């Protein structure tokens, strides 16, 4: 690995690692004050526990060997990685991909806000990482045969996922739905309002997410070449288009341009471009971003009719946004300069790619929903996953963490 690639992948790793705190602020700001630390903690927890699980087991299972369903344990406990083995070439990937692994379960936390026992979350994260994230990742990105081609079964079928639209966003989005189904609604939802407790915190989170996302999408190609540039540009334009489209949709629908709309739309655009970033070019990222912004702005309203208390709209933004982007690859994929893959419908390809995109997402949705549901049911029967009514009312910050977010009072009264 040459110096430029090394530097680039390390910088991208740092950027992706920065995203999980960014997500924490994005979600925490949207939450009510009395649960805002619990929200932060659910995200930071993922950034602590997943890298350890990943180093010890996850990476090896998600990428090792040449099977089609799951990796092996050859690199477990970091064996055969590190500077001694190959001058760090596999280690930099372990880290970069570990940062992706860390943020994925964190995404789910937005759906279970305000009512999940923290101890249950603490156990859920490593379990979900190993039982859901690792296999799906293997199917899409894992295994290498003698010629260096991927051997995971979805990859070999021919679906495309540049930086984790399916493996990360759709996967976490549908898991969020499963969690909501098992966990039930918050007391007082939907009658009681849950306005964001700190919009500036939401915007700080958004800024960090946007910034980090460049490492997420642009590093995923693994080289410092034109693909990295194109992926970066696509990310920039899709974020802008997503934010613009959501804001405009809200202006028409509800009468105002809102900050939360801008933030949500940027994230929706970023989610949607994630699977497509290295496969499309020209004006395509703008169309993808606009589509995601509009579709997700409507999708977040569905939870009310469906009766699912997906508190911070993980399904509406991440699953829906991920699907929008992943399926639009079937239209916009533009091989040639970007690499050797199937073309999308609008670039002279057939419907084959669209079908494969559909299959990959459908498989992920079914698998992730089922296993997430099972994990949470088992946890519920064993340790219980829902905070007591009293704890929910008092707020999870005090009841789960014995902390309060803000103590602004001059006196010794806590605030």
């Amino acid at each position: 690995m040459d110096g430029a690639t090394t530097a680039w992948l390390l910088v991208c790793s740092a950027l992706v690692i920065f995203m999980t705190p960014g997500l924490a602020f994005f979600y925490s700001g949207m939450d009510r004050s009395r649960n805002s630390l619990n929200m932060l903690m659910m995200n930071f927890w993922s950034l602590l526990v997943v890298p350890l699980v990943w180093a010890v087991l996850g990476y090896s299972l998600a990428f090792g060997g040449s099977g089609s369903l799951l990796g092996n344990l050859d690199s477990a406990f970091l064996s055969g990685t590190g500077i001694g083995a190959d001058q760090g070439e596999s280690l930099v990937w372990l880290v970069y991909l570990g940062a992706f692994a860390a943020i994925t379960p964190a995404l789910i936390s937005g759906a279970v806000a305000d009512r999940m026992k923290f101890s249950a979350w603490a156990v859920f994260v490593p379990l979900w990482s190993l039982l859901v994230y690792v296999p799906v990742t293997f199917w899409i990105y894992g295994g290498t045969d003698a010629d260096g081609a991927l051997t995971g079964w979805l990859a070999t079928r021919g679906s495309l996922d540049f930086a984790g639209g399916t493996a990360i966003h759709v996967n976490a989005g549908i898991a969020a739905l499963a969690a909501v189904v098992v966990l039930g609604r918050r007391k007082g939802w939907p009658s009681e309002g849950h306005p964001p407790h700190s919009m500036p915190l939401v915007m700080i989170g958004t800024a960090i997410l946007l910034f980090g996302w460049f490492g997420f999408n642009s590093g995923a190609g693994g080289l410092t070449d034109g693909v990295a540039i194109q992926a970066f540009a696509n990310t920039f334009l899709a974020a802008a288009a997503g934010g613009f489209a959501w804001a405009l949709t809200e202006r028409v629908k509800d009468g105002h341009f809102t900050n939360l709309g801008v933030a949500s739309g940027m994230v929706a655009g970023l989610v949607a471009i994630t699977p497509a970033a290295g496969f499309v070019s020209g004006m395509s990222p703008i169309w993808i971003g606009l589509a995601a912004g509009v579709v997700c702005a409507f999708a977040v309203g569905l939870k009310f009719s469906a009766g699912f208390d997906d508190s911070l709209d993980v399904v509406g933004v991440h699953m829906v946004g991920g699907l929008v982007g992943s399926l639009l690859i079937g239209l916009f994929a533009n091989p040639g300069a970007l690499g050797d893959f199937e073309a999308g419908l609008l670039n002279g390809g057939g419907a084959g790619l669209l079908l494969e995109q559909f299959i990959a997402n459908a498989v992920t949705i079914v698998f992730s929903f089922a296993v997430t549901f099972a994990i949470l049911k088992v946890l519920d029967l064993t340790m219980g996953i829902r905070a007591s009514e009293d704890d929910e009312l008092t707020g999870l910050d005090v009841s789960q963490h014995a902390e309060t977010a803000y103590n602004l009072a001059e006196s010794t009264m806590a605030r």
Partner: protein
Amino acid sequence: MKLITAIIKPHKLDDVKAALKTIGVDGMTVTEVRGFGRQGGHTETYRGTEYQVDFLPKVRIEAVVDDLDAGDVLDTIVSSARTDKIGDGKVWVSPVDEIVRIRTGERGAEAV
């Protein structure tokens, strides 16, 4: 005129407001306060140091009402704020000599 002051649980504010509206109370002033009482508090821990937090969030409602309405208002607050759990709070009534609506200068019953 009477001033009704109520200390209630924060999440009951909407119910109390709605109940008061029903009986014709059209104005009130509320404050975020902290209450100390039998309900007890909780502890917080920062880097191993424990803090006893004795003061819990409450909402204070003030409404000036006609002498004749005072009893009704009192009862309405009590019934709508009640959760039957410790810490539900108090309501008290105190005398008011005069009240003026700033905008119009109206006094007494017309001002509330």
